[in-house]
């Protein structure tokens, strides 16, 4: 029993001081700036933040689809940062990604079944092509695509079905870890709920581990076991889903949570913490706390010193000078 628990809490993916800077005209754009994350096997880590906070860059950097500028990424405890191309290709069978807009990530001239079989054929997952197509047909059942759609082209399908293709492709190599980069953001709510249910069912069935990137707070709360809140390349707060929504500590998280319009008219009187101003530039950021220019509680120290990312409660990390 204890063994099983240890097994469950084992860390599958871990980043240490992960950095990604992009060279731009004005200097260095700090897209991801020293992020430490741990994702447990079979769990979902939600990454939430507004546009430009570096959440998609993190997802891609972890898969080394873009190379990190510094720090370490470990998969099952082993660093993958120095793996060569062919070793990385092997790794990627275990680590997959689902994109926001599946239409821009698939070849419009391939039919549904070809798209789903593509990775298996390229990676010689099965001995013959026929076997790959067989498996692809089974995957269509798994993700809820009717088999009669096998020979249609993606432009004939709606967004929800296209996203199901994206999911089937990500599943085709039987990965353990999937980065879901805004997989439901382009979909209508009723279709969004279908896809969320599918992702959660698949997780239960196959023991998948997700990193779920989104800007939608109610979605992230629903699907995640843990949530990391990002602001301008930094993880400002991380806690279990329940803890974060009950006791947000960072001023940014607090504002973010009250900013959501809730479908409940009793909440009309809810006091909204409106943060002043807009996100400052991530190019050559100034020292000190990134949130300081917009923060209501900002003190002199916030401009001078960058707050440490510390554990204020069990499993609850915050990077703020004035938290707990």
């Amino acid at each position, binding site marked *: 029993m204890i063994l099983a628990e240890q097994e469950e809490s084992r860390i599958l993916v871990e980043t240490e001081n992960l950095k990604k800077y992009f060279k731009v005209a004005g200097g260095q754009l700090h897209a991801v700036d020293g992020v430490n994350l741990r994702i447990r096997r079979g769990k979902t880590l939600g990454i939430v933040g*507004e*546009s430009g906070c570096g959440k998609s860059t993190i997802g891609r950097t972890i898969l080394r689809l873009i190379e990190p500028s510094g720090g370490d990424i470990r998969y099952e405890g082993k660093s993958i940062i120095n793996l060569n191309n062919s070793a990385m290709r092997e790794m990627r069978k275990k680590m997959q990604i689902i994109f926001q807009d599946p239409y821009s990530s698939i070849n419009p001239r391939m039919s549904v079944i070809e798209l789903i079989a593509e990775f298996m054929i390229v990676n010689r997952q099965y001995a013959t092509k026929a076997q790959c197509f067989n498996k692809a047909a089974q995957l269509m059942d798994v993700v809820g695509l009717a088999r009669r759609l096998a020979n249609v082209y993606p432009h004939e399908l*709606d967004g*929800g079905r296209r996203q199901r293709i994206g999911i089937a492709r990500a599943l085709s190599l039987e990965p353990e870890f999937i980065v879901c980069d805004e997989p439901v953001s382009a979909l*209508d*709510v*009723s*279709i*969004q*709920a*279908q896809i*969320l*249910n599918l992702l*959660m069912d698949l997780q239960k069935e196959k023991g998948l581990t997700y990193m779920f990137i989104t*800007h939608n*707070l*109610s*979605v992230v*709360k*629903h*699907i995640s076991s843990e949530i990391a809140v990002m602001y301008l390349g930094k993880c400002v707060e991380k806690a279990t889903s*329940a803890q974060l*929504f009950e006791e947000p500590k960072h001023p940014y998280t607090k*504002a*973010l949570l*009250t*900013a*959501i*319009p*809730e*479908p*409940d*008219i009793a*909440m*009309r009187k809810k006091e*909204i913490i*409106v*943060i002043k101003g*807009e996100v400052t530039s991530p190019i050559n950021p100034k020292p000190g706390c990134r949130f300081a220019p917009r923060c209501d509680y900002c003190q002199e120290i916030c401009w001078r010193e960058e707050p440490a990312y510390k554990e204020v409660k069990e499993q609850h990390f915050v990077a703020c000078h004035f938290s707990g």
Partner: protein
Amino acid sequence: MTETILEVKDLEVQYKTELETVYAVNGISFRLNEGETLGIVGETGAGKTTTALSVLRLLPERVSFIPKGEIYFQGQNLLEMKENELRKIRGEKIAMIFQDPMTSLNPVMTVGEQILEALIFHRAEKAEKAELEKRVDEVLTMVGIAADRKADYPHQFSGGMKQRVVIAMALACEPELLIADEPTTALDVTIQAQVLLMIRNLRDRLKTAMIMITHDLGIVAQTCDNVAVMYAGELIESGTAEDIFCAEKHHPYTEGLFGSIPSLRVYTERLNPIAGLMPDPTERNPGCKFAPRCPKVMAICRSSHPEDAVENTHRIKCHLYSDGITDPRKEEERL
């Protein structure tokens, strides 16, 4: 008694191409009083934007047709108006804000010139240029932009700021009706909160009537007095915000919409989405549009189109309520 500012009666809109006819709006009726806000909520393809565009008569020419219906603005039928009469209403009495601010801003004009342009067009005979310039400063300040930024071009503003410029433009002529089509969909949550708060405050101060088109039930709950739920070109449920968010009886589609949103307060293991997809808008079936996806479907739903069941302000277009929208408690008493 407040006056009705806008009344839409049995409006139908179709888009015709050589190949097919799209039935975008199929007989909707609603009424908006002065100073009130109506939320039109629905998913992609429900006909929300088409409804808004037909009020302003901005539907694409040649492909769009309004075979039936009347739209009364302050007692005048907009659909029978001539183009030059309409121009006095568009922008001056009815203004519209679109989802993507960049599509309604001219990239090669400064934002000040663009606001001024609207004022000159609608107000020139009444005022001097200097006065109009002053008005530009006023509206910019009103939406929270420093007046000295009026010499900047749209690309120098962020998404949230651009949307503020568009709102300033829309409000410059003090319209009596403001139609906002997904005004905050392209914005981040914290910026959305800023813009929504601003829209609400301005509306309350200027007493502008408003139609808020959105797919987000949260926005509707926080900003609207009345709500209309659209599905496949029909208003399937409407009423006051209390009717939609507090009453017990709803259209199965409305129930599905609520079941699809993950709650922030209650933990749910699974969402209850609506199965299937929106029907093909090029087909017309005799029955209820929602029947193929409805979990409570009955035989009659497939053959006959439901009428509105009405209880005070609450209307539901569903056969389930053909005996009226009675409270379950009252029903028990009756039994």
